[in-house]
């Protein structure tokens, strides 16, 4: 299991830890610096929350709650060598639990009983979400309109002024690129 732990990977991990620690200390002294922590962790928190709720609106409300709570409490965050993201996900787990407690039982709650999402899954999804930003503009537009806005091929074609065939091609290329890039960083 430890075979792939090279000196380089250890040094990289140490550097990441130092960078994150300095970001946290900066945010504790000056709340304006919280922006860096937000940018680095938004996709992680969202990826965690969205896997535990049923609707996009719920995921957005809870993600907003998590960052508002984190901003309010950043002064009391104590560095113990645990990644900042783990602290955020603990806030997120509590927020999700509170959310389900407030949700009337008669509506059923299938998501709550799903296996707990693992750290690796959260990282994988967060990385995938961030990779969408690296796509070419027209591929990115198709991904957002198709998967976030859930628009049909014809609607997307109309909006970006391309043929339906071209939109389908862009969809295929976007997914291929994402698959290749997540593969590069994931295994």
């Amino acid at each position, binding site marked *: 299991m430890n075979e792939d732990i090279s000196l380089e990977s250890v040094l990289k991990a140490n550097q990441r830890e130092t960078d994150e620690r300095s970001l946290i200390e900066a945010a504790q002294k000056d*709340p304006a610096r919280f922006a860096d922590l937000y940018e680095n962790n938004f996709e992680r928190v969202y990826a965690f929350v969205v896997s535990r709720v049923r609707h996009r609106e719920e995921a957005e409300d809870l993600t907003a709650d998590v960052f508002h709570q984190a901003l309010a409490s950043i*002064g*009391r965050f104590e560095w113990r060598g645990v990644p900042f993201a783990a602290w955020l996900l603990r806030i997120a787990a509590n927020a999700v639990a509170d959310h389900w407690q407030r949700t009337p039982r008669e509506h059923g709650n299938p998501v709550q009983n799903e296996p707990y999402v693992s750290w690796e899954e959260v990282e994988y999804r967060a990385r995938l979400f961030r990779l969408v930003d690296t796509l070419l503009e027209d591929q990115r537009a198709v*991904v*957002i309109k198709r998967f976030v806005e859930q628009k049909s*091929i014809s609607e997307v074609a109309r909006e970006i002024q391309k043929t339906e065939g071209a939109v389908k091609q862009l969809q*295929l290329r976007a997914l291929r690129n994402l*698959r290749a890039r997540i593969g590069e960083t994931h295994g």
Partner: protein
Amino acid sequence: MGKRSLVDQLNQAVEAMLARREAVVPPIDPNLEPLLSIAAELRNLPSQKFKQRLRKELQERRNVMQTSEKSKTEVLQSVTPYLCVNEAGELIDFTKVAFGAKELFRTIGSAGGIHAEVRIGDSKIMIGGGGAWRGTPTPTALHFFVEDTDAIYQRALEAGATSIAEPSDQPYGERVCGVTDPAGNQWYIARSLEGPYVPEGLRNVNLYFHPINASQFIDFLSRAFGSVEVARYAAPDGTVAHAKVRIGDSVIEMGEAHGPYQPMPTTIYLYTDNVDASYVRALQAGGVSVSEPADQPYGDRVAAVSDPFGNTWYIATHIKL
């Protein structure tokens, strides 16, 4: 599958998946399966509009926190009057014009109304409310020490206040008058006739209560907030004509309700060293919980308690940001 192109096969599978999360996906070329698994994850892709909106919200919240921090370093005081009124904006303007107040900051509070802080001389006052706010107004009585009672009285009237009493010398050693501001707060504008114009131990602006059974109110303040009695003068009928109690670095004044001076349920922002302990103590003294201690994004941990005399106390401890 026949002649269906990869592009169409993938799109049909995506269509089925988007139409219903658990939909049966039509059979596809095995090479497309990894792409479909990426597509399944992308159904949860966060909206960029949401990410930007939340970024902006957090930025605004940070601005409030920073402004709040700044104002806290300007004037620190244990007891701050919190004037909650419908005419919050007008009241801020009135205090500026009539009393030379300096606005420290203004924001929109959690209940949708204005939250502002102003400084008058050495004293901080919070002003909350406004048109969008749906709370119960709590205009307040204040003992306001100034260098020139007559001049400030005149300025207050010109700024829209109404007179309660014209300036006159009182046997207890003050030249004093009274006005009601446009939001309903009563200001007893005074200067001490001996020594400095602000009597020792008081601020420019001090809370003044007219409780029914002031001695019980003094007792409550002592048990709930550890106040210390500074002075007490009895009226001929045995009630409290005038009393002062100290909480932290601030003094609260009061006199038994009489004539036109009847109880005005008031809102107070009180800093203590330990909000959780103060909250428990206030409840044990007979207070009723309005909200339990909780961290607030503006850097305070805050609880709220209503006392048996109708006043609401926001008890706070400043927490490090």
